């Protein structure tokens, strides 16, 4: 099964905030195997136009760092799933995504601990 996933990147890491990300790495995956990757510069700044830009590229999933509600809802309204609050070097993140572990791995932004840590003091879960 073919999928197109966009990773918001900055300096070989996941970009800290999608709202101001300039580049996405678009990955074509078939049956869990990467078949193509391409860096795409995002031209649009405004949430709905930026969401449209991703949708035009056929993106089905967006993996990014922090993202504001305005951008998140515009992207979700295009039928694109978001995996937000991811941090780390791009290649390990891609590997983790392909393994299906990116949401449960250590590639989480600070302040976005996994649920099982929540009972500890200071633990916090992110709005995913």
């Amino acid at each position: 099964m073919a999928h197109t996933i966009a990773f918001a990147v900055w300096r070989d890491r996941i970009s800290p905030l999608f709202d101001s990300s300039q580049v996405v790495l678009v990955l074509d995956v078939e049956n869990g195997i990467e078949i193509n990757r391409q860096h795409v510069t995002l031209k649009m700044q405004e949430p709905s136009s930026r969401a449209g830009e991703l949708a035009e590229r056929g993106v089905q999933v967006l993996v990014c760092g922090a993202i504001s509600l305005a951008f998140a809802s515009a992207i979700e309204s295009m039928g694109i799933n978001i995996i937000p609050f991811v941090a780390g070097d791009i290649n390990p993140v891609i590997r983790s995504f392909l393994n299906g572990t990116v949401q449960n791995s250590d590639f989480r932004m600070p302040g976005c601990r996994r649920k099982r840590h929540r009972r500890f003091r200071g633990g916090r879960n992110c709005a995913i």
Partner: protein
Amino acid sequence: MSRKTQHYPLSTDMTKVILESISDGVFTVDHQWRITSFNRAAEKITGITRKEAIGKFCCEVFRSNMCETDCALRRTMQQGVSYVDTATYIVNSEKKSIPVTVCTSLLKDENGKVIGGVETFRDMSLIEELRRELDSRYQMGDIVSKSQSMGKIIQLLPKIAESDSTVLIQGETGTGKELIARAIHDSSNRQKKPFIAINCGALPDTLLESELFGYKAGAFTNATKDKPGHFALAEGGTILLDEIGDVSAAFQVRLLRVLQERTFTPLGGTKPVKTNVRVITASNKDLESLVQKGTFRMDLFYRINVIRIDLPPLRDRKNDIPILVNHFINKLNKLKNKSISGISPTALDILMSHDYPGNIRELENIIEHAFILCQENQIEPHCLPDNLRPHLSEQKKNIINARLKSVEAQTIIDALKRNQYNRLAAARELGIHKSTLFRKIKQLGIELPRIDGRTKTAK
């Protein structure tokens, strides 16, 4: 003897205490952009604990919209210059944007060696919220409003414009029906084509028919050549049929046919002409009640009532008056090449207390009137039309006020006497609170005997 200021070097502990007690967020980074310290306010604003933040890249903790493109701290580290009050926003773990202002500077050790950078940031959410509240207004073209009812309409207009459906605009005279129709046209795909407004109530049937549909040469005496009607002129654009409630029953049938079949026949013509015009209708009458009375065709009503906009009268949205006054002042300053800066509070009070049967058009005319008379920098009460100004002169007002005060004082004295100067009982009788009574006694200068009604026996 001159006093010398003594300087005490801050110990590390003291610095920590200070940093922990301030409400601004503070963090420091090393040369690798990893966070080395994170104060309590920073934890509170970002929602990230110090434990989680220390050692992480600052951009992944701070998550501001300038981290990637225009980081103030990076500029400071590169140029050695401090930056103060750079406005930006950060995004917390709930995806909420928090407006902040940021100050950055170099972090040096005791020998003056740069060991990193320091960033302080202030949560501006409350200030932004207050600023938005003060400045909250809805605007589209020439339509400005602060009221919720108009805001809802203005927010809907782009969607209505996009739809290309027939629109019915209802509202009292002067509420801006034509402005709304124009705003719909201007934001629609037809914006580059003509917008034509015609007042149907002003013309008799035959004239209205020739105006709207045009005529062929020889249709009537003096019709020497073909004349296109408004429908033909507005081809591809929008036509506003104003005062639709005033057209005759016979003409309503002709209009219904145009709307249903999208064709019309010019006077004296034999072939129907196809039309691609968006029809917007407007009325200052309630068409629904006209339908119930039988003076407006039900089928035409349902044909034009696809999208309905009811414009509120100005008296129901008086909080729009100041913003509209400013809007008209700016507009007239440009038109008349004047530089009136605003309106005085007294003049604005007078405008706020008027009922505006002529709605916004009346307010605009009032401001235009004031522009002609106004010699000052701002509109004063004497610039306003006579019918708005209070009729009473200051002298008459003073006389009436003095009479009112003496009647008030007498009423209070009488009540006190009846209650043997017991203030509480007198206040009860007058139906006011005792503190109000004391205030009135002081204000009106009423002198009271030494007994206060609570004294049992005078010695």
